[in-house]
């Protein structure tokens, strides 16, 4: 009987001991954060500028990259790709009548591979074209990008002053939008050898640069007006 007691008691002690040991690490274990794996592009490594922003846009379904696993970060971005990325990133509704919306352009038909996205950015008043042309494969420069981002996000200016030495040289149709972009901290311009800031409005914009600007704008979600 005594033996039996001993066996039962030591067994109980063993079970208790084991459960204590076993449960300890679970009690203190931190909940594991499951992160979606990064999408690998053969031409954009984690050390490259814009890597995080591109990954964020990929995870939001805004960017896919090119077939063959390339992102082509330094290729100048075309207007049609800006339209696609914006339509995806902002989840813009596709207008009911795509052909009718596209009738303002004579160079984009409803058979165009990005017709829905181009119609979406047109209906949202982000793009309006020029002389009935959307010019889908033409590249976009930095001052045009300013206007696109300001329109896409309904950005408005504020009273803060901006300091860009080439401000007066910017195209009059984009100047105010560059100012608004700077006032919303989406651009601080580039720095020349004298340490002065400039915007470089007519310079083309690469795919990775556009991704950085867009990611900054996407992280700003606020009320711009109450009327």
């Amino acid at each position, binding site marked *: 009987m005594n033996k039996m007691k001993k066996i039962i008691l030591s067994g109980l002690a063993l079970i208790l001991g084991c459960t204590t040991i076993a449960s300890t690490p679970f009690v203190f274990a931190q909940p594991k954060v499951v992160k979606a794996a990064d999408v690998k592009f053969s031409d954009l490594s984690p050390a490259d500028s814009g890597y995080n922003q591109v990954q964020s846009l990929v995870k939001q379904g805004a960017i896919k990259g090119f077939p063959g696993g390339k992102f082509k970060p330094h290729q100048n971005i075309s207007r049609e790709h800006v339209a696609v990325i914006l339509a995806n*990133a902002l*989840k813009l509704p596709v207008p009911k009548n795509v052909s009718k919306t596209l009738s303002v352009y004579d160079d984009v038909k409803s058979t165009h591979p990005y017709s829905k996205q181009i119609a979406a950015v047109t*209906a949202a008043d982000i793009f309006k074209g020029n002389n009935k042309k959307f010019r889908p494969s033409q590249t976009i420069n930095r001052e045009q990008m300013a206007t696109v981002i300001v329109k896409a996000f309904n950005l408005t200016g504020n009273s803060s002053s901006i300091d860009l030495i080439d401000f007066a040289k910017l195209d009059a149709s984009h100047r105010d939008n560059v100012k608004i972009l700077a006032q919303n901290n989406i651009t601080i311009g580039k720095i020349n050898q004298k340490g002065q800031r400039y915007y470089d409005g007519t310079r083309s914009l690469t795919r990775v640069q556009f991704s950085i600007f867009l990611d900054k704008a996407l992280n700003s*979600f*606020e*009320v711009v007006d*109450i*009327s």
Partner: protein
Amino acid sequence: MRKSHKLMIAILVIAISFISSAPVTFAKSFPYKVIEDASKTWKITFTQVLQADSVTNASVYILDGNTKIPVRLTLTGSNKSINVTPVTPYEKGKDYELKVESTLKSATGKSLNQPTSMKFQLVDKSSAIQSVSQSSAAGFTNFTVFTRSDVYKVNINTTEMQMAGINKYSQGFYGLKSGTIVTIKAYSETGKVLETKSYTID
């Protein structure tokens, strides 16, 4: 180092750490507005397209004091704006506050960066004292009064209010208790009392 110095430094360090650890709220507020339309629809415009199911009476509402008033919410402008319409008309002289909480989401699932609000009041353009509003912070109560253009001077109790713009007067007081009633009088150029209004501190 003397003991008293050490003590003082210790108190300072504790005080600074308290100040720096105080919760900081990044609320945004739009300037106070006066309206004449008792059924005014407010249009709130955002930087991004909204997630329709996050537009609810919990994320967008109008307060009358601490009570939400019934409103109708409609998405407009390619889902980038919300129209807020009162179900019943606003009442004159009351302080209303339009509020947008950070539970509101963009179509991309991002929460509003900061809760946003705007106070407003329905005014009667024909009366001499068109609106009275107050804001309080740290024992300081500031009054703002909008008047008709023929008002020459405004007194709050016995104090003459400062001019703060066209037909706008303002005056601050320290230590006014909640529930205190103040009297506001608007005078004409000849010193005639055009209107007297009582106002209770929140």
